[in-house]
């Protein structure tokens, strides 16, 4: 199906043709980048969503457990809430480390090769 507007082109870098994009999409190099991204981001998304839902369900239906005092006036509910903050910070850091080490070099190599027209 043809689109009514062509994709806007960039002036400074060469825009590869559709055939080049199709060839790249099917290449082993791109396949590895896609796998490296998806196998990290997808399971992790499911994991943190499940962890958040578990926390919501505990807050709703496990009042006694959540009210257990740990020390002073700090109870399980507060500790788990703060744990959500902590895991959010850690996951953001972990993903960024993965992206910098495993995704960026591959992505940059493909981009410069394709835009350079090799």
């Amino acid at each position, binding site marked *: 199906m043809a689109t009514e507007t062509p994709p806007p082109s960039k002036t400074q870098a060469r825009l590869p043709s559709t055939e080049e994009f*199709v060839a790249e999409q099917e290449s082993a190099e791109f396949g590895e980048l896609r796998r490296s991204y998806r196998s990290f981001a997808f399971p992790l*998304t499911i994991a943190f969503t499940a962890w958040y839902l578990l926390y919501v369900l505990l807050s709703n239906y496990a009042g006694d457990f959540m009210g257990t005092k740990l020390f002073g006036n700090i*109870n399980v509910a507060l500790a788990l809430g703060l744990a959500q903050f902590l895991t959010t910070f850690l996951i953001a850091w972990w993903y960024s480390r993965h992206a910098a080490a495993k995704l960026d070099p591959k992505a940059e190599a493909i981009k410069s090769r394709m835009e350079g027209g090799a």
Partner: protein
Amino acid sequence: MSSVQTTLLAAGEASEHRGLIITLFSVFVAATLVITVWAGRQTKNAADFYAGGRQFTAFQNGLAVSGDYMSAASFLGIAGAIALAGYDGFLYSIGFLVAWLVALLLVAEPLRNSGRYTMGDVLAYRMRQRPVRTAAGTSTIVVSIFYLLAQMAGAGVLVSLLLGITSDGGKIGIVALVGVLMIVYVTIGGMKGTTWVQMVKAVLLIVGAILLTFLVLLKFNFNISDLLGTAADNSGKGSAFLEPGLKYGLTSTSKLDFISLGIALVLGTAGLPHILIRFYTVPTAKAARKSVNWAIGLIGAFYLMTLALGFGAAALIKPDEIIASNKAGNTAAPLLALHLGGVDSNWGAVLLASISAVAFATILAVVAGLTLASSSSFAHDIYANVIKKGQANEKEEVRAARLATVGIGAVSILLGALARDLNVAGLVALAFAVAASANLPTILYSLFWKRFNTSGALWSIYGGLITAVGLVLFSPVVSGKETSMFPDVDFHWFPLENPGIISIPVGFLLGVVGTYLSKEEPDAGKYAELEVRSLTGTGAH
């Protein structure tokens, strides 16, 4: 007469407080107008207007994203909810924060790589342009208007309360003032001006929160357990105040409602158009990732501080006083400032005025972002690509965006003035639910599901949108309860206030159904372009 005013009058200095608050408001407004004019002079082409020239650094954009996201609902709403309902107020903020991981892992970078100015750029990338852009534009405008309306009405309530304005004319005047300022920011300053306003606001908000947090902790010798204990005692609810259940745990319906809200918060953020367009203001996907990381750090730190503010207010102020001032607790943070400084002292007056000015700045920065998102989508998606079929030049497009800003601003002033006495707080949660039901499924399918096609995109956008809005229309948010928008009539049959638990799965499901119902084959070449481009940045703007 509200209790803030009573407290102020008791201090015998109401007019001085008011003068100080107005002075600080005016200083902020004057400073932002200078920034706007300066930014306007540097706005020369469409990329400047829509995307601030794409030259902001990751840190600058991270600040601006935080400024765009932390609305009055975050600052005043969460602090107030904690002050009145204890732990359940805190639950709210966790959903708002965790949501950023969806944006970080799945949306920010691919969107930056494959889009140009709007969310519609990505949704329509490999689809038939006109129908999908119309749908994306519609959903962008609906989400932004709901959000905008809640902010405008909130501004009316808050500012009238702080300044002691009770007349209808005064409240309408404030809504109109907010509306006119946001039109000026966006038409003159474009994305550059809006970004700077949001950065200034984020700094003010964070500095204000740090100051109040420090003062609260100082009162309790930095003993958090002591702070929590005093809050629990003073609230009159004892240890239940520190446990979940006071707000959402009352009935099995309210528990279900909380699950629904939680899902909408976590999945909604990555589908909010005014947040998504911020990723176009940085040069690369890597910078977009770093800006989300900054935002997560700043927003997370801020929500941790709202814990101290909320429990601090609960510990230091009688709950009756907070409720008398505003039933939802929205003035708990300004009241806390007054009490921390000393009700009878000048220091208390200065703190109250500063925190009030910060709240006002917060509202202005958020409404500017929302107006920009909706007028950009109108001009770029609907005017340039649907009405002009892609034949409009840059100048015409930016002119259309400026005109749309004036139009959307005028509509929001009108609606905000009409809604000034309605309870519209539920609209922010509704905006998240619509974003999660209509926008997120379409974004994810477009990026990651090869088979997805135009029909699927239309089904998921319109299906999610209509389900979410329809359910709210027949929910207690609109009718049938004392807290409803229209408390005197009752046509509600949907028991929950938040539609997410139904409308989000419906949005995802309809995307699949619509895809398979159509004989249209997906455009394999365009998907190859989109996929390679979204992951590598090849050909990105």
